[in-house]
């Protein structure tokens, strides 16, 4: 079972890294980090902060693009090219296929994020004489970005099982927006003075993944380290939510009629 899942994951990874558009996104992310040096020079006292905010912001932004881009066409492409039938005709369960695909995508994102992070730290080293312990906050922020990307790709995978790539991209983006504004949605619900709205807001608050919980970039720019307890709780939260998304994708994919 594990061998089958890892084979699918590895194949997905190889398939994804062949996509040249990912390289251009990585290049853009590194270029944007480099642009922070110029931006910082026209301001006062924020050169380093600008580098961290823009560098990590670029990693997050381009990471999100990649997660949506590679996640939405995942199942659709396999059906369109009819390669899925070859895979499923072998002793591979549908849930193994989905789990393997998801793990392969997470691996692709991890490798791409790793390359962008290496570029970011290279620019950081050019800008500052040596790294200091506060720079560890940037690494923590990258880890949180990766957790967020793992959830976004899970959402994209879920929609990929039920819809076309264009609609999947739209739905994933909408879920990302809602997930980033959950605290405000909850606040609006409670401020509306309507019990139904309050209930709806609370429902949305617990159903949608909270992407804002993974935003520690601003703290990293000030060199603030994330407490160890938060690292554990956020990792667990991401793991649970990824499990929800993958399970939901499996349930849909198991029911899907393939012709």
């Amino acid at each position: 079972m594990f061998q089958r899942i890892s084979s699918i994951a590895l194949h997905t990874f190889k398939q994804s890294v062949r996509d040249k558009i990912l390289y251009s996104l990585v290049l853009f992310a590194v270029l944007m980090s480099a642009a922070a040096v110029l931006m910082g020079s026209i301001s006062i006292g924020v050169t380093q902060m600008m580098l961290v905010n823009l560098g990590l912001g670029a990693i997050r932004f381009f990471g999100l693009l990649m997660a949506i881009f590679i996640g939405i066409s995942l199942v659709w492409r396999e059906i369109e090219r009819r390669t899925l039938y070859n895979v499923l005709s072998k002793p591979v369960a549908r849930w193994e296929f989905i789990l393997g695909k998801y793990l392969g995508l997470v691996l692709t994102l991890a490798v791409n994020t790793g390359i962008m992070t290496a570029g970011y730290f290279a620019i950081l080293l050019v800008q500052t004489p040596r790294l200091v312990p506060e720079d560890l906050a940037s690494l923590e922020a990258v880890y949180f970005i990766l957790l967020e990307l793992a959830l976004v790709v899970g959402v994209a995978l879920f929609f990929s099982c039920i819809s076309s790539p264009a609609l999947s991209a739209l739905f994933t983006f909408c879920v990302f927006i809602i997930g980033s504004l959950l605290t405000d949605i909850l606040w609006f619900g409670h401020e509306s003075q309507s019990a139904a709205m309050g209930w709806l807001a609370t429902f949305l608050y617990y159903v949608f993944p909270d992407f804002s919980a993974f935003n520690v970039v601003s703290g990293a720019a000030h060199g603030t380290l994330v407490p160890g307890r938060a690292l554990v709780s956020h990792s667990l939260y991401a793991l649970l939510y990824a499990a929800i998304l993958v399970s939901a994708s499996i349930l849909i994919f198991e029911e899907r009629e393939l012709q």
Partner: protein
Amino acid sequence: MSRRTWGYALAAAILVSSFLVQIPLRRRIDRANESASLAVAAGKPGETVGISGWKLRDLSLGFDGLLADLYWTRAVQYYGRARLTKRPNYRELGRLLRIATDLDPHLLVAYRFGSIFLAERPPGGAGEPQQAMQLVQRGIVANPNYWRLWQDWGFVEYWDLHNYSVAARIFLAGSNRPGAEIWMKTLAASIAAKGGEIETSRLLWMEVYKTAANAQVRASALEHLRKLER
């Protein structure tokens, strides 16, 4: 049970159990974040004309730090450009600084330089010491342990508003913050004397004399005590 049914049942079980477990975990994360967000929210301003930093922060989708840096850069550019004109107009400066610090309440450089830009008399600054004070006070609420903001507030009271007694009390309060330099206390003592609070000044110089590790500071404190005795 076939492989397909088994996979289906397992996925359903994982989905339900993960969903149920994530709710208490989510509440726990929220509680942990609550203390930090409450401290920041204490400095939350009221409604302003146009878009406020808080609204922008909500809509920034997690890019709030970057937006804060950009708004601060915009404030610096705005100040610099206005400063070069014959009749400088700094009308938008306060708003830009407010947005930058709403977006990132820990952007210390914006409070520090911003208060100078706002407080300084025209043409060098906006001549708005009250706005400068409000900016620094909001900075103190968001960064209570950063003593330099007390120094900046004290200077606005001293240089621009000439409230010597108030300035002395601010410098004294700032001197009790972690890592504050000893000269905050000596400044408080000097300004208290200037404001006519001789007894307060004497007590502060006495404390400086007793607590200062530097011999030069102790000698200076003794000299000031002698002057106050005369």
